[in-house]
């Protein structure tokens, strides 16, 4: 049985039909093209290395503020991200040899402390060691939170780059030997160069 064939030369459409067909094709093509472009862009953004890069500045040297940069850095590294932590100013304390275990937290002028204490009490001798001990044991140890030293080990294990700020070291008289092994030393420009490629940049 002969299949009906469409002979192009015999096919003449009225101009109106031509126009309608053309419009329809245009609409469909635009939709489909739009879809394809969206898909490609989404895939490219997922592949974007910046999405996998985290730059953290750690500028504080108290017990409570040393945790966020280290927890975030180790968690990010465990998720396969490339992480650099830049320790500047008081943050240098965290990466000094033996530094992490000596960080303290003062109850004075710290109204967010879990056990609120009037400043007039907070300034008494012994209150800072007390507050530090309470935070270490009741806050962290009791709930099985890793110690700062443990977190630093984890960071190293997962390849987090720990960088000490050159300027802060000079200003505070910190020598390379005072810092933990494996810590690099760099300045603002080096860090900013890395941070400029990072999707996530945090100042702590």
């Amino acid at each position, binding site marked *: 049985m002969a299949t009906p064939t469409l002979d192009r030369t015999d096919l003449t459409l009225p101009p109106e039909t031509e126009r309608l067909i053309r419009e329809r094709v245009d609409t469909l093509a635009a939709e489909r093209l739009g879809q394809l472009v969206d898909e490609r862009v989404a895939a490219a953004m997922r592949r974007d290395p910046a999405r996998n890069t985290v730059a953290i500045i750690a500028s504080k040297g108290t017990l409570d503020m040393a945790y966020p940069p280290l*927890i*975030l850095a*180790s*968690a990010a590294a*465990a*998720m*396969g*991200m490339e992480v650099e932590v830049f320790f500047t100013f008081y943050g240098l304390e965290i990466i000094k040899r033996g530094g992490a275990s000596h960080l303290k937290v003062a109850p004075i002028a710290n109204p967010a402390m879990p056990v609120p204490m009037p400043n007039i009490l907070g300034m008494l001798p012994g209150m800072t060691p007390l507050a530090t001990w309470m935070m270490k044991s009741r806050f962290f140890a009791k*709930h*099985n*939170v*890793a110690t700062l030293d443990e*977190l630093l080990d*984890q960071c190293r*294990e*997962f390849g987090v780059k720990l960088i000490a700020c050159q300027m802060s070291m000079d200003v505070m008289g910190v020598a390379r030997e005072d810092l933990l092994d494996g810590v690099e030393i760099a300045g603002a420009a080096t860090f900013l160069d890395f941070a400029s490629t990072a999707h996530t940049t945090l100042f702590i």
Partner: protein
Amino acid sequence: MTTAIHIDRFVDAKGQMCPMPVLTLARAIKELAPGQVLALAATDQGARRDIPAWAERTGNTLLDEREEAGVLTFTIRKTA
């Protein structure tokens, strides 16, 4: 009834607090061959969302997650 998935490795992260469950998982999954399955038990409530986020990020497959008596158990297949 779901068919039982064969677990190649069981990781106990009970009692560990953020970020340790994710770190423990990342460490353990390195020792698996692609296609192998591990089960992770955690008590950290933050793990409820952290573990799926980790799986999404690292391209590994979360096969199952359940909770029983405060213990969250995640079953993950190593794909990457």
